[in-house]
């Protein structure tokens, strides 16, 4: 959707309007500020939708975490913390570069805008790369829900035996087998949808960077950069919650 919007905003006005108007002003708006405020509000309403979208996942997570706390703790422990932590740093870093890109656009620094956008794209790609690595590990360990799921498969093969129930764990093997699968189902749905949002975001960033490079934006008209920023920050916020919920259920 942002994509469509970005196009709409970037298209030069097709109607012969007064020359006093900014070239990016669309015919059905009367001023640039009306156009900008409409765009920003639209983006916020879209984010409102996104919050509820992830809200449905978070309530599901909350319920099953209450029910199957031990399984969640065990499964969470099986996830490597380091890639998750690196990704947290990378993503927050990309939020910073995104914010700086918006700032550059506001202050009419074309070159800096483009550079910060490219930095954001790179950091976003690094995040996805690490995510791919993590997913690959999950496949290797048979931690992907479905027919091949086996929570203990990897540990036993490699003799690590991290499945040996720690003290206080009262669940047996079958029970763990069944309920960790719920954790991993949620893990994949949550991180998968988050990654999907990242991919969409990166595509939009490419388009925006291209437009910035072409000099479409100035201090008066940079709403597309601003709105992409809002979207990107939102994706960052989702990760800020996902990280402790998925990686840090019980580490002590």
């Amino acid at each position: 959707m942002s994509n469509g919007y970005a196009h709409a905003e970037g298209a030069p006005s097709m109607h012969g309007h007064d020359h006093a108007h900014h070239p990016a002003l669309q015919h059905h708006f009367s001023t640039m500020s009306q156009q900008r405020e409409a765009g920003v509000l639209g983006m916020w309403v879209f984010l409102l939708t996104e919050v509820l979208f992830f809200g449905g996942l978070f309530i599901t997570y909350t319920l099953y975490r209450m029910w199957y706390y031990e399984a969640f703790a065990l499964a969470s422990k099986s996830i490597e913390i380091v890639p998750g932590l690196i990704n947290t740093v990378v993503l927050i870093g990309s939020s910073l570069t995104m914010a700086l890109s918006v700032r550059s656009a506001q202050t009419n620094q074309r070159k800096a805008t483009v550079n910060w956008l490219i930095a954001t794209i790179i950091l976003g790609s690094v995040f996805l790369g690490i995510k791919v690595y993590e997913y690959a590990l999950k496949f290797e360990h048979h931690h992907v829900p479905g027919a091949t799921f086996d929570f203990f498969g990897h540990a036993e093969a490699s003799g690590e035996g991290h499945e040996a129930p720690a003290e206080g764990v009262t669940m047996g093997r079958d029970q763990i087998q069944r309920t960790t699968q719920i954790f991993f189902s949620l893990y994949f749905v949550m991180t998968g949808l988050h990654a999907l949002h990242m991919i969409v975001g990166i595509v939009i960033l490419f388009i925006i960077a291209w437009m910035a490079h072409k000099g479409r934006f100035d201090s008066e008209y940079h709403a597309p950069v601003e709105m992409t920023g809002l979207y990107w920050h939102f994706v960052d916020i989702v990760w800020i919650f996902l990280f402790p919920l998925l990686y840090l259920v019980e580490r002590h």
Partner: protein
Amino acid sequence: MGGIPLFPEAASSFASEVDALYLFIVAVSAFFTVAISAAVVFFAFRYRRRHPEEIGAHIEGSLPLELLWSIIPTIIAMVMFAWGAKLYYEMRRAPAESLQIYAVGKQWMWKFQHTGGQREINELHVPVGRPIKVLVTSEDVLHDLYFPSFRTKIDAIPGRYQPLWFEATKPGRYHIFCAEYCGTKHSGMIGTVIVMEPQQYQDWLAGGGSEGTMAERGAKLFNDLACNTCHLDSGQGRGPSLKDIVGKQVELAGGQTAIVDEGYLRESILNSQAKIVKGFTPLMPTFQGLVSEEGLAALIEHIKSLSPQAAASAPAPVPAAAPSTSTPAAPAQGARR
């Protein structure tokens, strides 16, 4: 019965109460429908346009009127709520002396088991004038056990027991429906509940149950599945003694407590490690998939028979709508008790 019947047979202790509440709401609805329709039709005649240039009176509104027609409906609604909630509470709390029956929904039939050992499919025999509690579950998808003449129903959810109770007041044959869509032959998943005079019911009971009571069958299963090798009455076995536990509160390994009822027993058999009694190691295998719903009910009846005084005097066991098959005690629950 001439003409079109408007009510199903009222054959349970709360059928007439539900009908009374229904008629009350019908009366309220009819009053408002008639009053508003009459007003609207009257205005249509009284204020019809008489010449093309005529316009309506300029009226902004009236705060007193707005308050009036907000507050009065609110009061009426609260009466409905309170009446309905009270009735619902009664419908969801089975009396202690209820006769227990197990019902299993399955695509596409209802299977009933009496504690005396009688098993029926799509037919249910019950005595008149005695509260009957039905523990309902499902083997596959959602179903819903519905007795229109008793004005009650409940969803059958795989993996847990849902309670339903009624007291039939009139001998006769009444419909059993499945009221939750369950696939191809949903509309064929119907049956008959046969309400009998107590004497007839005794005769019927005497005729069936050749395999012994549920508790007896459960006892046999208890041996067949080798439950008895660990669950010794002495308490010296590898598993806790099951004597006199029903209705008791047990302390769990995690520090929480649980009340032993049908829901707990069901969970402990199917997912033995969900709630381990304190002091025992989780050695018991899970019986998920190894024991049928009927067998499970028989086992539970057997275990209940080991707690004779609980069966006699326990308050109404309206079982938990416990979270499904394998729920460790949710912190909130443990903390509250």
